[in-house]
């Protein structure tokens, strides 16, 4: 075998891959190749989001990339002996990763580079189409750029689904010397990891998106507010920002345009509520993350009282593609008023969990059965929670609902950040409903009474139901409490906690009457 050729291997540095031993695999590959006299360089990429195949190792061959997975350190010697360096046969060989059905069926507009490139290399980013969106935005100018975002139909991907173009326009028109662009990267919803994957796998897509936004709205300073539970994303973002400054895509003269944009990443400190935009801004200012009453809206009075554009990671990262390919190309995907693609995150008790970016309109069943392949445990699916801890639990008969903001709302659910958590038939829905209250009690900022007190009363009352103490009467109390929380809470924390609770009670009533109506001791 010739040893002259240099071989490029790709091993993810995504947190899931690391959590499954990717660093040990990379070390084993390096030393194994060295022992065989192979000249190997290892590029640490993000993940393509086929997480049941992680750590997934890829090798560059003249026919394109060939993937192997899931690879353990113990597999490495056999893989190298089988000729992994040339894409040789082995039971773990997956072939061309882009032909794996899970990936081949997707429409990856936002995630097309994730898992492919070296995440902290500006050159690699540009070689894969990066910064064409910003070039277009600089050509179009602020009004033109905001117009493209509006025409694309892009809606805020953080959960609220507010039209991005309207928000951008408001900040653009606001009069002030100082404006800010803030990225909400406080991805706290259980079952969601698209932001994390993007920040670890293609951070320049976020940086470019925020730069486009800054140029469009006239901001010169930006912050990424990142949750502290993501230490890998923090390290990757800091490295990418430093490389971006060195390459002149950030700083005083962005790509020679004369525009300046300074970007910094800031860590949260374990408060779920800081994913709510006004609470996030308080936290970014160095205060307790207490929700602000609106108005004034952050677009007019945000960070330090200045006009501030706050968008989610997925909203910013959609914009480079939109600017490069045009609003119409993006709006051609999707259905109704939910246009473009949604990065869906499939998680929990599922066989093939991962990231599925596809046009809005796909049904939950297609995602869970078609992509997910059923449960990890092999037992029947009983419930799925869509949209994070504030999202509804759906039973089997609602799984034909399409993922679309309006269609989900019609079934008293929400799209949220696109996370889907699958539960098998061992789940106890009364326990899940209790947890929804418990989580709200733990994470409530405490400003408004319905949320602060309601959540605690909810836990107590649900405990009575679970104990079989007058379940019917206590469920009536819970329904009433939920109504107060929905109508009276200041933000979505208290306002949406009733959604998982009431959906569990409505769709799985049998779990709330198991103990039966026992005689109650005098209270």
């Amino acid at each position: 075998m010739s040893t002259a050729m240099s071989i490029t291997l790709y091993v993810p540095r995504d947190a899931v891959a690391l959590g499954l031993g990717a660093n040990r695999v990379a070390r084993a590959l390096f030393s194994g190749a060295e022992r065989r006299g192979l000249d190997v360089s290892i590029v640490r990429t993000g993940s393509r989001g086929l997480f049941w195949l992680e750590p997934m190792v890829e090798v560059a061959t003249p026919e394109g990339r060939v993937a192997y997975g899931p690879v353990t350190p113990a597999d490495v010697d056999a893989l190298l002996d089988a000729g992994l360096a040339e894409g040789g046969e082995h039971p773990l060989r997956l072939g061309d990763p882009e032909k794996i059905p899970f990936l081949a069926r997707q429409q990856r507009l936002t995630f097309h580079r994730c898992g492919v490139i070296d995440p902290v290399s500006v050159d690699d980013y540009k070689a894969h189409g990066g910064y064409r969106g910003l070039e277009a935005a600089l050509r179009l100018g602020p009004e033109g750029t905001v117009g493209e975002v509006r025409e694309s139909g892009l809606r805020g991907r953080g959960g609220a689904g507010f039209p991005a173009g309207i928000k951008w326009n408001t900040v653009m028109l606001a009069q002030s010397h100082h404006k800010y662009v803030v990225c909400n990267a406080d991805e706290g919803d259980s079952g969601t990891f698209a932001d994390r994957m993007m920040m670890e796998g293609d951070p320049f897509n976020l940086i470019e998106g925020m730069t486009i936004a800054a140029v469009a709205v006239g901001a010169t300073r930006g912050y990424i507010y990142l949750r502290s539970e993501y230490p890998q994303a923090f390290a990757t973002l800091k490295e990418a920002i430093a490389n971006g400054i060195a390459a002149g895509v950030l700083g005083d003269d962005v790509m020679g345009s004369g525009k300046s944009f300074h970007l910094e990443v800031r860590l949260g400190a374990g408060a779920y509520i800081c994913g709510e935009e006004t609470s996030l801004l308080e936290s970014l200012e160095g205060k307790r993350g207490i929700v602000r009453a609106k108005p004034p809206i952050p677009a007019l009075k945000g960070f330090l009282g200045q006009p501030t554009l706050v968008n989610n990671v997925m909203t910013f990262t959609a914009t480079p593609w939109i600017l490069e390919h045009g609003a119409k190309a993006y709006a051609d995907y999707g259905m109704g008023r939910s246009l473009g693609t949604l990065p869906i995150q499939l998680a929990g008790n599922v066989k093939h969990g991962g990231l599925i970016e596809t046009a809005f309109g796909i049904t939950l069943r297609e995602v869970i059965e078609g992509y997910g392949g059923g449960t990890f445990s092999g037992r029947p699916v009983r419930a799925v929670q869509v949209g994070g801890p504030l999202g509804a639990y759906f039973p089997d008969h609602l799984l034909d609902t399409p993922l679309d903001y309006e269609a989900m709302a019609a079934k008293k659910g929400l799209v949220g950040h696109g996370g889907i958590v699958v539960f098998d038939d061992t789940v106890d829905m009364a326990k899940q409903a209790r947890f929804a209250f418990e989580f709200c009690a733990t994470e409530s900022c405490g400003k408004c009474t319905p949320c602060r007190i309601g959540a605690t009363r909810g836990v107590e009352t649900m405990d009575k139901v679970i104990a079989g103490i007058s379940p019917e009467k206590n469920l009536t109390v819970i329904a009433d409490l939920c109504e107060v929380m929905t109508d009276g809470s200041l933000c979505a924390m208290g306002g949406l906690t009733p959604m998982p609770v009431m959906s569990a009670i409505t769709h799985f009533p049998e779990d709330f009457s198991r103990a039966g109506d026992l005689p109650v001791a005098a209270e």
Partner: protein
Amino acid sequence: MPRFEPWDGQRASGIIAEHSHLEGATLPILHALQETFGYVDAGAVPLIADALNLSRAEVHGCITFYHDFRAHPAGRHEVKLCRAEACQAMGSDRLHAEILSRLGTGWHGTTSDGNATVEPVYCLGLCSNAPAALVDGEPIARLTADSLEAALSEARA
């Protein structure tokens, strides 16, 4: 080498001074202090208040609002176990009971040998490969009681 330095007011003042020019400097300061000392000593409150022109109440309020900041030194290693829904769907409740009984401590507690402190967290973004944990910031996916034990003995070494 121990991961953390013993509390030192002068050293803390230096750290605070390094960050006080930032917009909204409180959280970066608190993170830096905790990274250095393993917790935020009560002695930091007046120092931060002075440097940022805040009241002590405001600084105290900020520290106590966030789950991350501790008022007392913790174990040598920090274990964060995810208690959120995706992990629940993969049996995290039962797993956590076993882990806590093996470690002989409860939530927020430290093992008797001072090796590890266990904190609950709600989501680590490893939800497709639940249950999940972080040990000193290093992720573990498809967590088992044994894999946590292995990670902790590796960290101890």
